[in-house]
């Protein structure tokens, strides 16, 4: 069965069809939740809430809409619900303040931590966790789910201008966080230098 057939079957109560839908999308959704929530336990809970919401909402799902887009929206909402419901924080960083107060912890790496890939990933995770939810959401959809701006608009129901500015602002916040945290851009120094000339270079314009 293709996805449309699976959706129709699941809507009719076919659990096996629904299970196939879950298996088709669970990795993407779990990873979205993981980046949003910051830990595996909450991510699994939010991802499960997402699929339960899908199950509950199948009746109202329009067949001409993209299931993935809807799932991303459900997942984003599930993560934010989870974080707010339990007043949980991501890696101990408060998300209550809509203003951008990014507390930078001491990241002074030991020599052993200077393994570039690991350190970069660790810093990115922490920086991402420190972003306010609304900004983290769009950046995760863009960078980790690799959605286009247009797709992010559909998922978040935001205007294109808002999506653009939030992604930009999220990157600036993340960049400030990482710059203050020490060595992220030292680790990536070669990239920074390489990119100085790319504006007129090979990147594709839209």
């Amino acid at each position: 069965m293709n996805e449309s057939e699976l959706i129709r079957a699941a809507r009719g109560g076919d659990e096996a069809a629904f299970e196939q839908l879950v298996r088709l999308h669970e990795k993407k959704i779990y990873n979205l939740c993981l980046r949003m929530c910051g830990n595996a336990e909450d991510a699994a809970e939010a991802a499960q809430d997402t699929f339960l919401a899908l199950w509950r909402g199948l009746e109202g799902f329009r067949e001409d809409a993209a299931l993935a887009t809807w799932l991303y929206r459900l997942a984003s909402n599930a993560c934010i619900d989870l974080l707010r419901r339990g007043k949980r924080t991501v890696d101990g960083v408060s998300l209550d303040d809509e203003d951008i107060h990014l507390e930078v912890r001491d990241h002074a790496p030991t020599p052993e931590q200077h393994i570039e890939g690991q350190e970069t990933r660790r810093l990115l995770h922490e920086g991402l966790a420190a972003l306010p939810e609304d900004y983290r959401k769009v950046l995760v959809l863009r960078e980790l789910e690799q959605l286009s701006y247009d797709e992010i608009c559909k998922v978040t129901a935001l205007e294109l201008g808002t999506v653009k500015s939030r992604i930009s602002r999220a990157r600036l916040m993340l960049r400030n966080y990482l710059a203050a945290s020490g060595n992220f851009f030292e680790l990536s120094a070669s990239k920074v230098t390489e990119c100085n000339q790319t504006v007129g270079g090979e990147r594709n314009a839209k």
Partner: protein
Amino acid sequence: MKKCEEFAPLLSAFVDGELTEEERAELRAHVMECEACQKLLGEMTALHEAFGALGEEEVPAGFTEGVMAAVRAEKAAAKPQTKKRSAWRRMAPLAACAALVLLAAAVALPQMDKKSVNDADMSPACAPENRKIYAVTGAPSADGDTGEDCPEQYCEEVQASPYYDYQLGGAAADEFRTANAPADLENGSSEPEYYCETAPIGESGREGKFLAADYGPPIFELYGAGATDYVLSSGGVKDGDAGFYCVPIAALRALPEGLGMTQAQTETLARAPADAEWVLVYPNDFSEVPQP
């Protein structure tokens, strides 16, 4: 003329390949002249590429099964309610315990033996010769005798689903909880009214006093239970449909080392009426056991 900060959204959109030709030309003209924006562009690109190296994590084992168990529980729970305080009865088909309930510890708990049964003041009605078992009890019968023999077929292993976070009510009780719970209710940490309700335990049709709350059945999550190693006996759970089972509250009050509940659940247990005997439990196999 635009200031540098006004170019930030363009730099960001450039990194994403989302600029029009016109915007791109405008950005190019600025960046060629502006060292700060060159640096910022480099940093945004470095960020973008670092994300690309993050990769994807695998979904935890048992996730799909957990979702499907939740879906089935929700289907079972979707039947209309006739009275408020009988919400937990929706669970009965899922959690219907047989005349005997067995709790068996995970492989990680080989130290547990029948001694803990005695410690928990449980009656070892029919302990198979299996060192995994730590608590065995018979359901209360009409005359209070719990020492009845246990049919062999009730002692089965079941595959429970680890990621279904029931806490107090969970997804299966969502509908009911939403309709009845105080607005600030949070995982049992608020103060619902707890009471006992007499209900059938398992297929025997005999009754026991169940802990209930004013918005649904308290369902406890037992951390460290090691779902696949847990053994229980329950007519309703034999098919692995939902992973619920009933345990005597006395057993929860004397949990062995390695098993735990959340603080909220511990508080709930502390507020349970003195005559509550049974509670619904959902096993959870998180390897890190949060101690109450």
